[in-house]
């Protein structure tokens, strides 16, 4: 394995772990089925892109976009995170206040599809279907991005972000606030009766998840240098859900495991499937289709046989209380 491939896997793993931790806060801990999670990642990616790009007039005008501020690292990453959080406010206000939980899910699904369609069609805004390419990564003006040392540098920038997000997520899960979230997830009415405001709880965690999701997008776009509507179609969210369900809803360690197993491990493993099986040549499009079927089976299988995931959420029982 060459170092570029290794670096790609590591950065992708970092991005997926961060995304899954965010989704876990929303879905695993708080019970919000955010089917438009990938939109928040995209918001972070686009924001980081326009913050670090030169103005669109600078490169021959083959792409058009707003902004173009050429700001140095870490501003694009911070901006990406903020954008994810800011986007969460109006979305949360529309979706989280009055709708029933499964209703919220489909509203968010619709939102994900529409957001993608809008960005694709409004070309002057973020360059439409082609997306924004040649996004300069952090320090790319000082270290040549095509070198191995840059790949290492990028891994070096990603790892602290993963640790930071993990730290934040753990603190939230173990805090009194995390307890309130779980209480709301388990029994919203009872939590309300105890004086917890479910809308406020949901809004806060939705915004926190948006911030972290935005950060994951910023990290991704700095590495691959492109953000386009085709990378944030709604099935991408389903893969992240599969990771959280497989890993263990509510358990941060489990979710990290899930991120490594599903988006990274599972998708890479299918690249290694031989293209001839005992002399039989499968149609070129068969294996990609079967991969999605397997993702679906993974979700359904786990929900049926082991809904708590590989690493179940810790049971938090008061020691003196009834078992």
């Amino acid at each position: 394995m060459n170092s570029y491939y290794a670096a790609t896997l590591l950065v992708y793993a970092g991005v997926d772990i961060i995304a899954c931790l965010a989704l876990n806060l929303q879905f695993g801990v708080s019970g919000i089925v955010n089917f438009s999670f990938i939109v928040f990642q995209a918001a972070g990616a686009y924001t980081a892109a326009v913050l670090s790009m030169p103005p669109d007039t600078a490169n021959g005008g083959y792409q058009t976009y707003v902004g173009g501020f050429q700001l140095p690292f870490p501003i694009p990453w911070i901006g990406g995170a903020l954008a994810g959080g800011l986007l969460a406010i109006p979305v949360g206000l529309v979706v989280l206040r009055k709708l029933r939980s499964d209703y919220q899910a489909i509203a968010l699904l619709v939102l994900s599809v529409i957001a993608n369609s809008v960005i694709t069609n409004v070309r002057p805004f973020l360059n439409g279907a082609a997306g924004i390419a040649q996004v300069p990564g952090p320090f790319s003006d000082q270290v040549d991005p095509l070198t191995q040392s840059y790949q290492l540098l990028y891994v070096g920038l990603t790892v602290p972000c993963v640790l930071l997000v993990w730290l934040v997520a753990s603190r939230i899960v173990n805090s009194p606030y995390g307890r309130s979230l779980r209480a709301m997830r388990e029994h919203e009415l009872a939590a309300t009766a105890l004086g917890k405001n479910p809308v406020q709880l949901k809004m806060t965690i939705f915004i926190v998840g948006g911030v972290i999701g935005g950060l994951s997008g910023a990290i991704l776009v700095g590495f691959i240098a492109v953000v386009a509507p085709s990378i944030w179609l709604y099935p991408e969210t389903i893969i992240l859900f599969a990771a959280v369900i497989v890993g263990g809803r509510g358990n941060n360690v489990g979710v990290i495991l899930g991120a490594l197993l599903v988006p990274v491990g599972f998708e890479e493993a299918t690249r290694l499937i031989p293209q001839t099986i005992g002399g039989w040549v499968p149609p070129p499009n068969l294996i990609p289709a079967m991969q999605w079927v397997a993702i679906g089976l993974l979700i359904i299988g786990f929900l049926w046989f082991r809904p708590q995931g590989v690493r179940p959420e810790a049971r938090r029982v008061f020691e003196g209380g009834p078992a």
Partner: protein
Amino acid sequence: MELYVAALGFGLVSVSVIAIAAVGFTMQFGITNMINLAYGEVMIVCAYAAFYVNRAGVNIWVAMIAGALAGAVLSFLLNRFLYAPFQRKGTNLIGMVIVSLAASLMIANVLLAIVGYYSASYVADQGPLVRSNGLVLTTAQIAIIVVAVILMLAIHGLLRYTRLGKAMRATAANPTLARNCGIPTQRVIDVVWLITGALCGVAGVVAGMNSENFTVSSGAGYLIEIIAAAVLGGAGQPYGAMIGALIIGMVTELSAAAIAPEYKEVVAFGILVLVMVLRPQGLLAKRGALAAAG
């Protein structure tokens, strides 16, 4: 002006297609408490089933029956072997939505492996063009509108005037109470999946006729329109779904005429968001469908 009148006529066709689909979708939700996100993919499976029958030389209107049968059987099986077991297990609403999304992913991709990415289109005579007061429609499009009207009336009659319809409404309102009153809710639910599945199948075939070309990936687009219509009208409410379909279909066509066509769907969904903000229970829903989760 001429264009707007024509767009109204075209809107009627879109409305018909969406209405057939959305009524089935919303009945599944209203009666069995299941948001079936695999609905759009089941539609496409039925469209392909009718496609193969049609290509074997059968008239498309007859092949539509094959589509309806395929939809009924597939939906019934989907509930029997996937949704119902999960519901019996006590999986919560969120869990069920995820299960159905996973099912949708699997159906789409199994279909893809079988029929491929190539687009399909029916061999169907569109019939002569009918022009009247600025409306321009083909005979086949008028037939689609007629089919929709008949199906809507049939659903109305079923729910309103038959014992089965009464049982369905009772099951929707309170399954436990209905069972205690001697209604065989299990059988009722089976029948609901068969009927809504058939609607889904017919919807798939008329959607295929409407688009002329369809591919496996069309299913996701159908689903979004259906959800929009159902939510707009008040989920679980068949009459609401009809009104929702009317609004979504008309707004889509009229905004293609008035604003830029590439935004026509965006405008329709803008209205949906507005409704979710101002009247989250949907236009028609009474309390019930949207009560807090419990």
